[in-house]
């Protein structure tokens, strides 16, 4: 035996190989699991598909930047300063003769990193805080909520600016600052979801079975709050990229000679009349990347919302 198994189907007992069986299970899973439904719904959504293509292109460009770059992004050349887009410099060159296309490829790496890492920081702090606050309730919840009220009182990018003032300028500090600025968003979101999940009978059953609070929160409560976290994180990556570029533009983020998009843009400002490509292209890149994540976020929100799926 070993490689064949008897399976009872509507056509009677059939002998099937193990491999066939495995494939069948996989197919079944693909057709019926929650996540595959989400994926299929997502791929039918035109906006989400465009978003995925945009993000995919940027990710590939970032991963293969060393192979795609036509020049060294940091190499200066006094003879090719402020050249317009052309065959030598595809997107032109900057005031130090550096190739804009190559710099932007590496800049994409920085922006994607900032987006992902700052969101991870926000999730890593905000999700547990919101979960514990919502799960335990009581005084702990009140104190946490008032603290979050205070953090939310700093509008938009201001909280990130305040944090970066404390930490000092630089890309790493921008990631931390933008991450911290998104903590209250996650804490609020997760607290709300936990409040609605914690009264479900399976959570009560788990508690009655003597499972520890820690295990209940992380194994039973949080997985059921995953959908809003994923949607929020997709939008949050877009926001993080925008804010980080803004901070760099203000001189509070990435420092020279780092090819961060916001930084390239602010340096190009001084040459706007002679070399408008230095401000146009990095801005377009930021716009596209943010648009990509926003489109994907919209699609995910629709796909993860069972109510809107049938439409």
């Amino acid at each position: 035996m070993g490689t064949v198994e008897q399976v009872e189907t509507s056509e009677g007992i059939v002998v099937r190989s193990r491999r066939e069986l495995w494939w069948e299970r996989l197919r079944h899973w693909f057709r019926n699991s929650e996540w595959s439904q989400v994926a299929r719904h997502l791929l039918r959504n035109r906006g989400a598909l465009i978003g995925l293509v945009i993000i995919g292109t940027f990710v590939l460009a970032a991963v293969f930047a060393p192979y795609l770059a036509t020049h060294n992004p940091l190499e200066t050349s006094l003879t090719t300063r402020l050249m317009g887009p052309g065959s030598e410099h595809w997107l032109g060159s900057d005031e130090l003769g550096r190739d804009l296309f190559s710099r932007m490829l590496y800049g994409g790496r920085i922006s994607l990193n900032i987006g992902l890492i700052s969101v991870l920081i926000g999730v890593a702090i905000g999700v547990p805080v919101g979960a514990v606050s919502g799960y335990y309730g009581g005084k702990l919840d009140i104190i946490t909520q008032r603290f979050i009220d205070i953090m939310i009182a700093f509008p938009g990018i201001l909280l990130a600016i305040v944090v970066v003032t404390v930490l000092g300028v630089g890309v790493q500090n921008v990631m931390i600052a933008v991450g911290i600025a998104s903590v209250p968003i996650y804490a609020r979101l997760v607290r709300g979801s936990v409040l609605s999940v914690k009264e479900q009978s399976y959570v009560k059953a788990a508690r009655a079975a003597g499972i520890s609070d820690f295990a209940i929160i992380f194994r039973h409560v949080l997985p059921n709050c995953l959908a809003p976290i994923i949607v929020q994180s997709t939008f949050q990556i877009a926001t993080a990229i925008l804010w980080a570029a803004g901070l760099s533009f203000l001189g509070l983020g990435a420092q020279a000679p780092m090819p961060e998009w916001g930084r390239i843009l602010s340096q190009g400002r001084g040459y706007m009349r002679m070399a408008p490509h230095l401000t146009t292209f990095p801005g377009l890149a930021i716009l596209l990347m943010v648009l990509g994540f926003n489109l994907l976020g919209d699609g995910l929100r629709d796909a993860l919302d069972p109510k809107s799926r049938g439409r």
Partner: protein
Amino acid sequence: MYQYIARRLILTIPVVLGVSIIVFAIIRMLPGDPARAMAGPQASPQYIESVRARYGLDQPIPVQYVTFMSRAVQGDLGVSVFSRRPVMTEIGERFPRTLLLASVSLLLATAIGVPAGIISATRRNSLFDNASMIAALVGVAAPVFWLALMLQLLFAVQLGWFPSSGIGTPAHLVLPSVTLGAASAGLFARITRSSMLEVLREDYVTTARAKGLAENVVVYKHALKSAMIPVVTVLGLQFGILLGGAVLTETVFAWPGIGRLLVDSILRRDYPVVQATVMMLAFLFVIINLVVDIAYAFLDPRIQYQGGQSE
């Protein structure tokens, strides 16, 4: 209702105190000796000590905070290290300009975004709907500082229609407010559209149509009022985000408002100004949210604010 308003007012007090404590503490955590900074680079040690004593910087930080707050409520926010002028005077000069910019931007965003959203919803999948939704997506994704530079390049440098920077005439207000309002306009258009679509499916709208009312009457008299509720909710939030975004817009257009003052002061390490500006922006945001919440209570008949269980 009045009970709700009173409760909401009382809840604001800890937030305001918390914001002031946190900002105060953060500024004290920053590296560098504030007394030395105030005394100037060539000051003798004796003079630095006298400055330290004069501003109470030799006191424990909680004592300093109480002194600061008791002076602040009397309108004394300290002296700018950079300009040597009272911080209150600096802020008093610049604050109205930021308020003007943010208000005009919000008005513009509402005047464009809301009608666009209504028309999109009533003519779903039309050319107008598709075009305005693409414009809305781009408006939300475009970095505000990049949009500022592009508008400057096109309408000030190339076409010469509007002044490229500075203040003075109403024409100076056009480019900064369009820049700042673009993202909000996009957001308003999207929210109005989806909320309107939702409302147009309601039974009472069908009834109104069945009564033989003209489509315009159905849309503008019956549906619009309830469709506006989500828009009003984000309005206040957007005003805060506009205040935060003003930091970037003001930098590009050399608009001497409070956002520009904040960034300049951070870069100059003029901490008394940073402290006061951040607190001011946060307080304003808290007040706006308070006003929106109260306005909301009057607007939405579905919500009952009894018994203090309204959060």
